[in-house]
C-alpha cells in the first residue's frame, strides 16, 4: 500500500471515529432537547415524533435555569476581573525583573493546578467555617475562582510583559513621558491581547468550574454546572439535561475559539485550546 493510500485510509478512519465520538452524541442531545412532551420519543422511532421548543421555554420559566445563568454569568466576570487585578503585579515582576528564584516562583504559581479541585473545595470550605465566613458564599466562590485560575492569568500576562520592548519604554522616558503615559504607549499595546486572553480564560474556567461551586455554593448558589449535575443525578429528565448541556457547551465553544485567536496573537507558543 502506498503512503498516500494509507494516509487517506487513516483520515477516513479518524473522521469516522470522530463522527461517532462527537457528531452523533451532539445530534442526539439537540434532538432530545426538542422532544415535545405531547408524544414521547420511543426507541422504535428514528426522530422525535413531535418537536418543539417547549422544554427550552419550560426550563426558562419553571426551573432554576434563569437563576443559575444569572449567578454563573455574574460570578465569571467578577472572578475574571479580580483574577486580572491580582495577576498583573506578579506577572509584571516575573516578566520584567530578573531576580534569583524567578523560575521557582513561576513553578509555585502552578500550585492550584496540582491540588485536586475537590480537596481545595472541601478544605477551603473548612477554612471558611473556621473563620466564620461560611455564609459568605458568593464572595468566597469569586475569591476561590480568581485564585484557582491565577496560574493561567499569570502565565499569559508574564509572556505579555516579556514582549514589551525596552527601547519603547526608554524612548517614551527620553521624550519625558510620565509613568502613566509610558504605560499607555509602551506597555499597554503589547499587553492588550494578553489582558483579553486572561479575562476570557478565567471567565470560561469559572463558568465551567464545578467543585468549588458545588461544595461552597450549595444549597444557596446554583450555577449551570451544578444545575446540570443535579439534572444528571436525582432529578434526571433527559430532555431537560439536554437543554442544560447545550446551554453550557455552546457559548463556551465560541468563547474558546475567540480565546484561541487571542492567544495566538498574544503568544504563538501558547495557542493551545484551554492552555
Amino acid at each position, binding site marked *: 500500500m502506498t503512503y498516500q493510500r494509507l494516509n487517506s485510509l487513516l483520515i477516513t478512519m479518524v473522521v469516522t471515529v470522530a463522527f461517532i465520538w462527537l457528531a452523533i452524541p451532539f445530534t442526539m442531545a439537540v434532538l432530545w432537547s426538542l422532544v415535545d412532551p405531547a408524544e414521547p420519543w420511543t426507541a422504535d422511532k428514528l426522530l422525535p415524533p413531535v418537536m418543539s421548543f417547549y422544554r427550552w421555554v419550560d426550563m426558562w420559566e419553571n426551573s432554576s435555569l434563569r437563576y443559575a445563568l444569572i449567578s454563573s454569568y455574574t460570578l465569571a466576570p467578577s472572578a475574571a476581573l479580580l483574577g486580572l487585578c491580582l495577576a498583573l503585579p506578579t506577572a509584571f515582576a516575573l516578566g520584567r525583573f530578573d531576580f534569583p528564584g524567578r523560575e521557582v516562583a513561576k513553578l509555585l504559581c502552578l500550585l492550584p493546578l496540582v491540588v485536586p479541585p475537590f480537596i481545595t473545595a*472541601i478544605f477551603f470550605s473548612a477554612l471558611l467555617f473556621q473563620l466564620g465566613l461560611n455564609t459568605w458564599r458568593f464572595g468566597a466562590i469569586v475569591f476561590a475562582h480568581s485564585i484557582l485560575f491565577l496560574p493561567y492569568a499569570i502565565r499569559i500576562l508574564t509572556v505579555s510583559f516579556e514582549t514589551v520592548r525596552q527601547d519603547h519604554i526608554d524612548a517614551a522616558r527620553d521624550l519625558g513621558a510620565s509613568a502613566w503615559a509610558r504605560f499607555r504607549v509602551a506597555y499597554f499595546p503589547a499587553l492588550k491581547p494578553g489582558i483579553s486572553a486572561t479575562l476570557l480564560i478565567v471567565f470560561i474556567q469559572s463558568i465551567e468550574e464545578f467543585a468549588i461551586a458545588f461544595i461552597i455554593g450549595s444549597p444557596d448558589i446554583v450555577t449551570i454546572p451544578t444545575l*446540570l449535575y443535579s439534572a444528571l443525578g436525582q432529578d434526571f429528565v433527559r430532555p431537560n439535561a439536554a437543554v442544560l448541556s447545550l446551554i453550557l457547551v455552546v457559548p463556551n465553544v465560541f468563547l474558546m475559539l475567540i480565546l484561541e485567536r487571542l492567544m495566538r496573537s498574544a503568544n504563538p507558543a501558547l495557542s493551545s485550546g484551554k492552555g
Partner: protein
Amino acid sequence: MTLRDWVPIVALLVPGLGLILVLIGSVVYIAVAQSFGYYALLGQSEFSLEFWSDVFGRKLFSRAVRYSIYVGFWSAVLSVALAYPLAIWLRKPFSGSIGLGALLKAPLLVHGLVAAFLYINVISYNGLLNQFMQGIGIWSEPRRLQNDSNAFGVLLLQVWKNMPFALLLLTGAVQSISDDILDASRDLGAGPWARFCKIIAPLSISGMQAAMVIIFIGALADFTFQTTVGPTNRQSMAQLMVSFKSRGDWHSAAVVGVSLMTIALLGSALLAFTSRVIMRGGLR
C-alpha cells in the same frame, strides 16, 4: 541584590503568588491538621491518630483507594497510548491535517458533565448503542450498560476528555523534533520502530510525562464521572471524601483528602519515573 531591590519585587509578588501560597498552603494545612483531630467544628480539638486508624481500618477506604488508582492509572496510560501515534502521524502537515487536529482536540472544549450526559444518552437502555447492537443482530435484547461495574464508562469518558489534552502536549513535543535528525537516522538505516524508540520517544519524553502526570492526578481525584456514570457499588476517593464531609465527619474526610494528595504525589513520581525508564529502554 540588596534589600532595597527585593522590596518592590516581593510587594509585586504578594497579590498573585502570595495569595496562591496562602490559599493552597492553608487548604493543605487545614486538611492535614483536621486529619489529626485539630480544627474540630464540634467537640474537642486535640491531637489524635484515631481518625487515621479508623479510616484505614475500613474496607470502604481500601476499596476506594484501589479503585481510584485503577481509574487514574488506566486513564493516563490509555490516553497517552492513543495520543502518541496520532501525534506522530500529525507531525508533518499534510492536506487536512490541521482540520483533523482540531477535530481530535474538540472534546477539550466540551465540559465533563456534558460529556457524561452525551455518553449516558448513547448507552442508555433504549439508547442508540443498544438499538444498533440489536439491529445488527448481535444482541437479542437491550442490555443495561449504565454504571457498569468495571468502570469502563468512567475510563471511556476519561479518555474521551483527556486524549485530546495528551495529543496537545505530545504534538508540541513531537513537532519540535527537527527533520534533520529523523532524516539522518533514516539514512543510517533505522526503520520506523527504531526511529520511534531511539529518536522520537527520548526527545518527547517530558511532554509525555507531563501528560501522564496531569491526567493521572485528574482521573485519580475524579468525582463527576464517577458519580454520574461510575459503578454504584464502589466509591472513588473524592466521592468518599465528599460523602464523609456531607455527614459532617470532617476528620475522616481530611484523612481521605491527605491520602489522596499523597497518592497523587507518589503515583505521579512513580509514573513519570517508570515511563522514563520504559521510553529510554532501561535504566541509564
